[in-house]
């Protein structure tokens, strides 16, 4: 039974300083849930990429964190949402090396590889919501979202 214990925190993403706060918050939340150092670092890095996307491409938004559990295994769900222009071509955006800005183009695709579950919901002109889930240990069942 997968359960989400409700939203734990909602952080604004409006400036570079907020990205620092997002990283620290995710690190602490993951640490509290018993994430190992590697899983913790991976999730924090993914959060950093996604939060920067929210800021740079989405024009700012927010991140919600929620602890989730699957039997004894605990995880963390992060939801990044913005009301920006949306992603017109998701397939291309997920391709390594493609960038609409001046970055490396590794953010979205890289973030997907760093977490256990990854879903993007984007409507051009309305906004983008990226939801990722990572588990404290190996994914308990089949990996989803790929």
């Amino acid at each position, binding site marked *: 039974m997968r359960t989400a214990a409700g939203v734990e925190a909602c952080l604004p993403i409006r400036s570079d300083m907020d990205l620092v706060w997002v990283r620290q918050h995710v690190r602490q939340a993951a640490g509290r849930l018993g994430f190992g150092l590697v899983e913790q670092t*991976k999730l924090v890095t993914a959060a950093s990429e996604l939060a920067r996307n929210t800021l740079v491409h989405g024009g700012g938004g927010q991140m919600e964190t929620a602890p989730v559990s699957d039997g004894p295994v605990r995880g963390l769900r992060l939801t990044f949402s913005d009301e920006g222009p949306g992603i017109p071509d998701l397939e291309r955006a997920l391709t390594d090396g493609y960038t609409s800005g001046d970055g490396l183009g590794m953010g979205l695709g890289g973030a997907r590889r760093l977490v256990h579950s990854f879903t993007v919901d984007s409507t051009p002109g309305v906004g983008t919501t990226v939801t990722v889930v990572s588990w404290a240990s190996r994914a308990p069942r089949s990996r989803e979202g790929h």
Partner: protein
Amino acid sequence: MPEHEALGEHGSPAREVGEFLRRRGEQIAQRWADEPLFRTVFTVSRDEAVEAGKIVVDALAQVADTDQVHDPDAAGFTLVREQLSRMGAARSRAGFTTAQVSNDVDALRPPVENLLVSDLPDAPSDLVRGCTTALTVLMGTLRLVVLETALSEGQALIERQRLQLLEVATPVIKLWDGIVAVPLIGTLDSARSQVVMETLLEAVVDQHARFAILDITGVPTVDSLVAQHLMKTVAAARLMGAECVVSGIRPAIAQTIVHLGLDLGTVITRASLADALAYALHELGADIVNATPGGAGRR
């Protein structure tokens, strides 16, 4: 107000409460010492909690004396503001939200109210009601003061940290003739990495450095932007004839970089600063050898 006039020989309810607080200060402090707010903050001894409680009761009595139960700026509160902020801060540090701290403060009221009511068995009901109302208002104001100090404490902390952050310089250290190192610490945002690149390139010129070591032990997160900054710095140094070595790549960071799909193949990397120094020295033709052969074995 007509109620006040009906009190006759009694003072205003607030003053009555002030008198009561002074009379029963010790008992109140004793009861408060068992409440979470005091119990969890003053963990060394119960006496300490009682002592702290008494100071707060005294302050409340003083506020009540001056009929300012509704005023968070009352003179009496200034005495305990610092202590209250310390208590609030301790609770916040322990992971409690402002709302929970607020509830903690609210929990201080019932014990006092019970004492107050039992203290006035023969008093006219008007007076009892007036006193409990005054006490409730007073405790509400205390709650406001605690939250207010907690907030201003937070603001002050942010200001201090902002200043501290500005002071975090990026020194370039000369490790050897021709070898300089930059220990990178904290967040590598665009502004800071620009500073790093400039100071490093200047040092390369000044020190005639052939090797520049970028140590990222103190960088908690290496995402694609940080990697991009690193690679730009490496490329710029290379243009000036200096080879860059990125050191301090911890196992978790290494795995993350791989999953992220970053290609640092063009960059020389080493696990630790010592390895990077050894590599640079070796490249310069200055290998390190033990002075006494087998010296390590004698220990």
